[in-house]
């Protein structure tokens, strides 16, 4: 017997017979409609409609499916998790948001509530920031997936009335030389994915005229079947222009692009594992990007904001209009009455449910008081942007949807925003890893040349140059520094013409450490994001979290996720750097297995005067070079071990008190003008940081490993060179400020370990004062740039 009964109406509308469906059939219905609800959820839906004494329409089931998807509702982060240590009620509240709540900084304006986190900036301005994941669509259609990822996160910024000023992108791919014969059916080669994703990101940001200023690219086998794409956007917003005050009677105004069949079931597809059929089945889930449309939408929304005509705004992203309308009504304790036939379509022939859930791009939803409607429509018209009233907000908490005079959905908002709690089990077993033993290589110069040309460390210039990182003319510290394109630790933007204050944007991520312990991976990512920010002069740092993990219904995945969240709390609290926004992407699994747990931390800092910003390339021969922070025998998960084919067990830790002191001192030294160049130590340790500082400037370096502040366990030159201990900086101090600098650092872990040299050679003396490295800068630069081009 079919569960689907076509209603006698002049369009496609199906009633779904839930009442007579048993458990097996409920799941079958969920599958057939592509709404990815589990049995508990389907039963909750069935009960709801039993109480209403009727069966749902396809529009209603689709609406619930979208709203309850992992992507839209973040069930896992809000769910109940059983661990061997007891039950956790909501990872978000227990760890990530809790740090912010306890720190309670006065400069946080809105956190975890709106489309983006909002913090104070200058007297009359705030900064909004958001980072999104767009993994699943990018795996199916790399260009479109990545482009709409950027488009989506820009709309999140528009969705808090802010004007976008910069974009970021962090990408994880499989190895570009991956063996074709090993690719499972339906999986695209990493090289194809890489080219498409990079082009997609550049296309959107460049066309919209938003500089892409910061990012990272990471390669690992676990991303072959499931690429990870993080797109970020930062915006600026005049204070007191943020409005979220929808009232019953306000008009629901849909603006921007037309609605088509692209992006049907994007969120439900993103909330399941990828399979070999994904290409065929889910291709329509990927949207089509039109950045010029969004550019026009942006102009109109900025005008609308300045004139204060709207009462609320949100972006139409995952789940389409079904989610946007519901969310806006829910946030303002209203109901809403939508007329689907009003929605402008790209072409005819869409069923009502398709119109309602389509994720076609470049659309925003506004609520506008009726008295402002005319003026609002005029503004959109002046920018050649479509704006269509599609419904009205009501006072009864009910979502009503009509199509051509027929009621196609009627749901209690309260019901659709209270899905059954996710229940999961988490367990984490420490992997059985040992520290490798191998003799110290005799030729460390060759080791450095090899480490510097591993794809993870090698220069990304060939990618960065395809992004316009200068548009708007406000990029003070660029992703490519000076003549040789050195890798700056963070980007600095000067968003206001009449203020010297800058926004500092950096990130931290090291999935390799997660193979040993996700807790220390998260701690390291936080430390790295913060120290990158500190290294250029940033401070008062806010964090954003982005998790890309495997299927959380598998206890080990949930176990490692929980451990990472614990570290997020501990170190956000420890560093006094609140989380302001985040986004997770789970179910990143393909026939090749899950992605390695990948936590991206984005740090947004400020610098009071951009003229004090510090870049990473060496400035003046003769200047002393100091290493600030202690080096431990921490090579587990390091690039050096990886090169040798090991993972190791000694994952870098974060010693919070020491770390904080180091960072505070660096900030003081920068403000006092004691630092000419500064580079954080991360992948590849001292070896890579000193090489980059040298070949980006053309000046050489002489280093003495004997002087490196370290624990006594390190007795090898290679370990000193390549240890990836956290919270360390290499700084160049002007010779004439040497004494001031040393006085400031007095009592902290800091030592002069070398000098800037005129001759273009990286020269390192080992523990026994013997010369162990002598590398020509031209050669270093050639090897560093030679991998990905530049």
């Amino acid at each position, binding site marked *: 017997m079919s569960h689907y009964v076509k209603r006698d109406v002049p369009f496609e509308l199906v009633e779904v017979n839930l009442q007579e469906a048993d458990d097996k059939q409920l799941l079958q219905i969920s599958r057939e409609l592509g709404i990815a609800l589990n049995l508990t959820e389907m039963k909750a839906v069935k009960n709801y409609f039993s109480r209403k004494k009727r069966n749902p329409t396809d529009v209603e089931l689709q609406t619930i499916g979208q709203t309850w998807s992992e992507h839209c509702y973040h069930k896992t982060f809000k769910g109940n998790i059983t661990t061997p240590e007891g039950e956790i009620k909501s990872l978000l509240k227990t760890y990530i948001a809790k740090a912010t709540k306890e720190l309670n900084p006065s400069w946080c304006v809105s956190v975890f509530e709106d489309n983006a986190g909002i913090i104070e900036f200058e007297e009359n301005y705030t900064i909004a920031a958001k980072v999104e994941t767009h993994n699943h669509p990018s795996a199916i259609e790399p260009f479109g997936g990545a482009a709409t990822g950027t488009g989506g996160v820009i709309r999140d910024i528009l969705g808090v009335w802010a004007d976008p000023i910069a974009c970021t992108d962090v990408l994880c791919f499989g190895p570009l030389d991956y063996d074709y014969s090993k690719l499972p059916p339906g999986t695209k080669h990493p090289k194809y994915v890489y080219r498409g994703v990079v082009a997609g990101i550049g296309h959107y940001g460049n066309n919209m005229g938003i500089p892409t200023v910061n990012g990272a690219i990471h390669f690992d086998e676990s991303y072959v079947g499931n690429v990870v794409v993080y797109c970020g956007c930062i915006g600026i917003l005049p204070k007191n222009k943020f409005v979220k005050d929808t009232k019953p009677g306000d008009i629901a105004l849909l603006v921007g692009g037309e609605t088509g069949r692209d992006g049907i079931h994007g969120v439900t597809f993103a909330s399941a594992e990828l399979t070999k059929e994904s290409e065929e089945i889910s291709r329509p889930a990927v949207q089509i990007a039109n950045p010029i449309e969004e550019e026009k939408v942006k102009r109109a929304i900025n005008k609308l904001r300045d004139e204060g005509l709207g009462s609320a705004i949100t972006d139409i992203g995952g789940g389409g209009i079904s989610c946007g309308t519901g969310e806006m009504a829910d946030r303002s304790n209203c109901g809403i009455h939508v007329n689907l036939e009003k929605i402008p379509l790209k072409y005819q022939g869409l069923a009502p449910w398709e119109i309602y859930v389509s994720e076609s791009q470049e659309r925003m939803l506004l609520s506008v008081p009726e008295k402002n409607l005319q003026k609002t429509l005029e503004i959109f018209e002046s920018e050649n942007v479509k704006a269509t009233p599609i419904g009205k907000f009501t006072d009864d908490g009910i979502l009503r949807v009509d199509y051509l005079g027929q009621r196609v959905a009627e749901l209690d908002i309260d019901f659709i925003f209270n899905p059954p709690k996710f229940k999961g089990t988490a367990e984490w077993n420490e992997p059985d890893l040992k520290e490798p033993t191998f003799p110290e290589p005799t030729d460390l110069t060759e080791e450095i040349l090899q480490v510097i040309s591993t794809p993870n460390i090698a220069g990304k210039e060939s990618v960065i140059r395809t992004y316009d990182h200068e548009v708007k*003319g406000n990029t003070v510290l660029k992703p490519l520094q000076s003549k040789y394109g050195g890798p700056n630790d963070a980007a600095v933007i000067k968003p206001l013409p009449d203020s010297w204050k800058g926004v500092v944007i950096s990130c931290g991520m090291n999935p390799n450490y997660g193979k040993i312990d996700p807790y220390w991976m998260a701690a390291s990512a936080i430390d790295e994001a913060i120290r990158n920010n500190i290294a250029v002069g940033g401070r008062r740092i806010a964090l954003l979290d982005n998790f890309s993990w495997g299927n959380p219904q598998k206890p080990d995945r949930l176990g490692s996720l929980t451990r990472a969240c614990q570290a997020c709390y501990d170190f956000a609290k420890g560093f006094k750097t609140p989380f302001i926004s985040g986004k997770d992407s789970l179910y990143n699994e393909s026939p090749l297995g899950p992605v390695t747990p990948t936590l991206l931390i984005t740090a947004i800092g400020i610098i009071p005067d951009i003229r004090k910003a510090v870049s990473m390339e060496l400035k003046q021969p003769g200047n002393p070079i100091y290493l600030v922070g202690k080096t431990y025998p921490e090579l587990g998960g390091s690039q050096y071990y990886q090169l040798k084919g090991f993972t190791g067990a000694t994952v870098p830790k974060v010693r919070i008190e020491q770390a904080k002191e180091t960072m505070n001192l660096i900030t003081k030294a920068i403000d006092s003008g004691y630092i000419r160049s500064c580079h954080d130590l991360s992948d590849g340790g001292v070896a890579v940081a000193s090489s980059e500082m040298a070949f980006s400037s053309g000046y050489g370096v002489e280093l003495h490993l004997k002087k490196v502040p370290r624990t006594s366990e390190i007795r090898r030159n290679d370990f000193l060179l390549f240890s990836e201990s956290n919270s360390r900086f290499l700084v160049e101090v002007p010779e004439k400020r040497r004494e001031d600098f040393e006085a400031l650092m007095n009592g902290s872990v800091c030592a002069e370990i070398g000098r800037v040299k005129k001759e273009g050679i990286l020269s390192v003396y080992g523990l026994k004062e013997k010369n162990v490295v002598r590398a020509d800068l031209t050669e270093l630069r050639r090897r560093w740039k030679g991998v990905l081009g530049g």
Partner: protein
Amino acid sequence: MKVEEIRVCVIRVGGTNCDAETKRAFDELGVKADINHLNEIVKKASLLDYNALVFPGGFSYGDYVRAGAILAKGTLTKLRHDLKMFVEEGRPILGICNGFQVLVEAGLLPAFEGISEYPEATLATNIPIGYNCRWTYLKHENSGRCLFTQKIPKGNVLRIPVAHAEGRFLFSKENEDRYLRKLYDNDQLVFRYCNKEGEYAEGEFPVNPNGAFHDIAGICDPTGTVFGLMPHPERAFYGWQLPDWTKTENMPTYGDGKLVFESMVEYLKSRF
């Protein structure tokens, strides 16, 4: 006229995205610049209220068809008469990046015999192919015709960044030699890509970032009042925009791009 009397129109349509920083450059010089949507200018018929016109960078109308082509045709269709007046009266027209593409597509550049019906040159897809954002050196080639570079001595080297995918200046093969001679004869050549020392790129990447013929980065029309260039002077206006300002002990206040805007304002002050 006095500086404060000068009115500059920065024109935009959907996809224009360098209008704000272009306006800012004029603001900094005390000149009033308005950013106007093309629709507005057409509706109000207000183009001739302005003393100068700027087509800023971006991707006008998505640069579908060819970069700048749609805006060029749109502007001509709607404002042909006003544009002609502009040129005839010697009111300056500046095209930056996408604006340069527009001026070439519109026949306003090189305009050997006045505004041409069909484009006489093109800004083709870069070689190497793809979008490229980088700082370039430009040698000033003009002997005085171009009003936009009057404050720059001939032979001087400027540093200004480019960011585009279609910036390879070309003439059709059969006209190449003849047109190049015309550029020289009419003193229409303004900027050529070179290295820091002022040696021409001779087509070599990345000194010449797009493979442009004869390393051409910018040209003016025979009257010197219409000027187009691929590099973005508004992104090299302030010292803090330079790619290596952190190297200097004392950050320079301004960059080389300022000279283009200053020359333009200087001209407006003395001419009108």
